[in-house]
């Protein structure tokens, strides 16, 4: 039907703005879908390939030390495919500026062969075994970048009380170090402060004085085996060697971070397109419905001429299909662009050796299928009206729009208060319920997007505040390579830089329920703090600060969940520290603690000492210094070989801020998406409203209404719809933010609370209103061009 096709193009041209608004919403849906699914699959695939190629382990065990051939015994356990033993230990390294950081030495046997967690070289060359010169190491790329290390540079470390010079021969990564974090409480990588050094096993045994020994075992398991049974069997074998702790891949830090990112991407890549496609469907349905109503007599003529329902329906549905097709085309092009951008960002964030690019053809095909399906089905639904049009009847003058009384009029005292433009607006809404609902849904969707965007900023601010202001109130947290006496700290107080310090004693323990014979146990970190200390804040899951108890324990939420323990229960803790035999003691649970990141169970310093059969032992110290003394203090620390790690709150904080810049990108994207949606929705609704009421508005102008007053009439209707949309959008956004946190952002490692600050509600509302008004403003030129003679002529 070439004539009908030509007519189709003319309809598009006549309503360019409307067509563009519809295309934009479809385009946004496709854009988001393609970019996010592509980024997801790229990241997922390179993760999977890397894990497989490097044989990423399924389970990790740490011991004090065990003979290296222990792996042979472990490999005999049914369900264990392979076991690799290695030495891994944190040592301090000396930074060029005189400060200190933590280097995690990780050993590999040469030749690499079939070992688990193999390193992959990114640049430089592989290390060689003992060669007489300085030991050769590979470092992780973030560390190298953070410190500005180049191949051939020498890095000094302090190990076993001696300074050792390491020669950097290459940059490498492994599945464990895609996102290298020191421990669960560090939230973020600290590229200048913490790094990974990979070195040959024979070098590691020399440097760390562990000849013939290993202290870590990585296991590969038969897929689907009962991990718990295997852990029990391995624990039994390792018991004599100071079995410290064990964790499955699901608790491996780098993996957790990557997996969380993947889950978030997946959730968003489903939710956002759904939002856009739903709104697109609603808008297409509305527009076609209106078109058919307006062209009732044209349809009647076509029928009188002998066109059948199918041809006429196809004619109108093809409009929707054209919208979808154009939207899908533009969305695909821009989606591929954004996918590249996203994948690049991830490639920088996670150092994955396998390529992260690539076009996801399936996503493109799906995009076209979804958008064409949405267009065609909403078009078909809207075209049901075509069948009802009787040619004979449609020739008669179109039934005038029915003025109807609305429900609100039954409350006369209220109705009386509205002036006539309000009354017109409300009657118009009552007449166009579907349009009203689509508009409200669109506004709500924009508000939801805005809330999701702004709320991320809240989460970041909350984390900053909680982690740096409430939980950790020290300037420095220093750990020693082995426990020291409290008296050894005496002279620190004499340093002029130091304002105050508080000791900590950290003891890795296994926790069981007191009367359960240790059937189920959980690894935990018992942290002993001073009773009158204030530098480390401890919080309950509901955010209330807890005081360190004299006796008893503030049990970690993680262990309490795993072992189903509540306040009032008793637990048995067993020390796993490599100090003599494993001491045990029974403690009453007096509270449940939950820190933002990491954390553990908290007891008093005395209780922790009692567990070890000691009295004045400590493993670390929190220090506050006088203002402006950081450099001097760090120089002093640089001279101490007994320190294994230093956390500087200043550096951590600025590091965190830099890292969170990437979140700003997401927030900006969300706000742009929301803005475009609100703009398109408001423009479309205003235009439809305007077109439908052209005659009425023209008459008002003839009667002497000013342009501003006419604008007011339209604005009141849009405003009322927007208001309802915003009111509905806010609780919906809140609910979705909570849902997002619960499904995509909460892991074993950290419990992200769903905090939404009041400013988010205000920001979301204000920006929604701005975008809506902007969309409305786009139609105001039409108001000025309203042709009065024309409107009167067309009066029917």
């Amino acid at each position, binding site marked *: *039907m070439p004539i009908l096709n030509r007519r189709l193009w003319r309809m598009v041209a006549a309503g360019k703005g409307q067509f563009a608004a519809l295309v934009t919403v479809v385009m946004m849906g496709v854009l988001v879908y393609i970019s996010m699914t592509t980024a997801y699959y790229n990241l997922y695939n390179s993760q999977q390939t890397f894990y497989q190629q490097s044989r990423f382990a399924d389970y990790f065990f740490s011991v004090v030390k065990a003979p290296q051939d222990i792996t042979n015994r472990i490999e005999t356990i049914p369900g264990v495919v392979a076991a690799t033993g290695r030495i891994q230990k944190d040592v301090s390294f000396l930074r060029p500026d005189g400060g200190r950081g933590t280097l995690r030495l990780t050993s590999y046997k040469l030749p690499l062969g079939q070992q688990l967690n193999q390193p992959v070289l990114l640049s430089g060359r592989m290390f060689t075994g003992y060669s007489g010169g300085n030991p050769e190491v590979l470092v992780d790329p973030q560390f190298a970048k953070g410190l500005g290390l180049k191949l051939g540079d020498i890095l000094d470390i302090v190990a076993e009380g001696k300074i050792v010079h390491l020669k950097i021969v290459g940059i490498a990564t492994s599945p464990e170090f895609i996102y290298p974090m020191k421990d669960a409480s560090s939230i973020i990588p600290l590229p200048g402060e913490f790094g990974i050094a990979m070195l040959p096993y024979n070098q590691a045994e020399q440097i760390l004085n562990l000849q013939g020994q290993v202290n870590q075992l990585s296991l590969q398991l038969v897929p689907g085996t009962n991990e718990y049974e295997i852990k029990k069997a391995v624990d039994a074998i390792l018991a004599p060697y100071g079995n410290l702790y064990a964790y499955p891949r699901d608790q491996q830090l780098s993996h957790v971070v990557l997996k969380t990112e993947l889950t978030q991407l997946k959730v968003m890549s489903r939710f956002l397109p759904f939002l856009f496609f739903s709104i697109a469907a609603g808008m297409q349905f509305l527009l076609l419905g209106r078109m058919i109503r307006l062209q009732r007599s044209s349809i009647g003529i076509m*029928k*009188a*001429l002998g066109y059948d329902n199918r041809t006429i329906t196809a004619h109108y549905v093809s409009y929707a299909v054209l919208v979808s097709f154009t939207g899908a085309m533009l969305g695909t092009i821009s989606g591929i662009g954004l996918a590249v951008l996203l994948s690049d960002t991830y490639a920088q964030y996670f150092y994955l050796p396998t390529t992260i690019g690539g076009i996801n053809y399936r996503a493109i095909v799906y995009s076209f299928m979804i958008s064409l399906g949405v267009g065609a089905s909403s078009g078909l639904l809207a075209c049901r009206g075509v069948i009802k049009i009787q040619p004979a009847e449609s020739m008669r003058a179109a039934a005038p729009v029915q003025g109807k009384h609305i429900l609100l009029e039954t409350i006369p005292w209220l109705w009386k208060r509205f002036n006539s433009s309000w009354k017109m607006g409300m009657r118009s809404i009552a007449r166009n319920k579907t349009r009203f609902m689509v508009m409200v849904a669109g506004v709500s969707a924009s508000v939801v997007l805005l809330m999701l965007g702004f709320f991320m900023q809240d989460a970041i601010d909350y984390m900053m505040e909680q982690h740096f202001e409430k939980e950790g109130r020290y300037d420095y947290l220093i750990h020693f390579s082995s426990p020291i006496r409290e008296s050894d700290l005496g002279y620190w107080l004499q340093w002029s830089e130091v304002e105050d310090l508080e000791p900590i004693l950290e003891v890795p323990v296994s926790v069981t329920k007191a009367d359960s014979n240790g059937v189920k146990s959980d690894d935990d970190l018992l942290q002993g703090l001073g009773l009158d200390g204030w530098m480390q804040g401890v919080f309950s899951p509901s955010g209330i600060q807890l005081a360190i108890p004299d006796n008893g324990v503030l049990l970690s939420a993680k262990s309490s969940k795993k072992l189903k323990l509540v306040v009032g229960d008793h637990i048995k803790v067993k020390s796993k520290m490599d100090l003599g035999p494993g001491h045990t003691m029974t403690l009453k649970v007096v509270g449940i603690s939950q820190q933002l990141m990491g954390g553990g169970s908290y007891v008093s310093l005395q209780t922790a000492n009692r567990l070890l059969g000691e009295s004045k032992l400590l493993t670390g110290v929190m220090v506050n210094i006088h203002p402006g003394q950081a450099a001097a203090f760090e120089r002093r620390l640089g001279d101490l070989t007994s320190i294994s790690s230093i956390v500087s709150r200043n550096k951590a904080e600025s590091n965190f801020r830099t890292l969170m810049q990437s979140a700003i990108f997401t927030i900006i994207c969300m706000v742009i998406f929301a803005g475009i949606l609100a703009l398109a929705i408001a423009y479309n609704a205003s235009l439809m409203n305007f077109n439908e009421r052209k005659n009425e508005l023209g008459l008002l102008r003839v009667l002497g209404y000013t342009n501003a007053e006419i604008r007011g009439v339209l604005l009141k209707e849009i405003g009322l719809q927007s208001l309802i949309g915003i009111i509905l959008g806010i609780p919906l956004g809140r609910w979705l933010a909570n849902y997002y946190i619960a499904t995509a952002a909460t892991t074993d490692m950290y419990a992200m609370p769903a905090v939404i600050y009041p400013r988010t509600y205000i920001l979301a509302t204000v920006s929604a209103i701005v975008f809506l008004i902007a969309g409305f403003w786009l139609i105001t030129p039409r108001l000025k061009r309203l042709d009065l003679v024309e409107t009167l002529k067309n009066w029917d």
Partner: protein
Amino acid sequence: MDKPLLMRLENVSKQYHMGEVVVDALQPSSLDIYVGELIVVLGPSGSGKSTLLNLMGGMDRPSDGKIFFGKQDVSAADEGELTNFRRQQVGFVFQFYNLIPDLTAAENVALAASLIKEPMSVSAVLEEVGLSARAKHFPAHLSGGEQQRVSIARAIVKRPPLLLCDEPTGALDYQTGISILALLRQITSTVGSTVIIVTHNTAIAAMADRVVRMRSGIIAEVTSNDIPLAPERIEW
């Protein structure tokens, strides 16, 4: 009459139900229509003229009675058959032209032409109605008479055996009205269609072969003109 029968209406009636109220738009009426004749249907407003025309054109189905077009029982046709009937057999001309506003004159004609296998050529038809020069104009830029010519062109391009015109001159001035009627008269001879013109202008009856007079929903009288007047000589 020696002309062959084109359409036969047997006790055809039409009622409209508007809620509780039943409107008898057409009471049982019968009429035979022959090939090539020009019938004028006269009657006051509301007498059921349009209703009768719509039933003949397959735009609507009778409440009772039968309509035969040749052998085909149009009154028993389903939706699809009615559509096809309109497509193949009927051309319509309306009082308010009812052109599709976003199609040009030629495209409005082509819209109809594209429905059948062997239509007349669009340009030839526009030539016939004297509008070749206006082919590319949109309806909004045509005068009432010109629009009505387009509407006639659109109706005859399919060479329909039956051409139904509902008040074709109702919205036109005298001169223009006459020229439209002349055009319709001419079509009965060139295209060979049977033309039925509905009007309440009694003067037009003079040009008809037969005149059907309606009053309050019933065919009151059918008369024949032995010597129909040329439209140009009609005056009102």
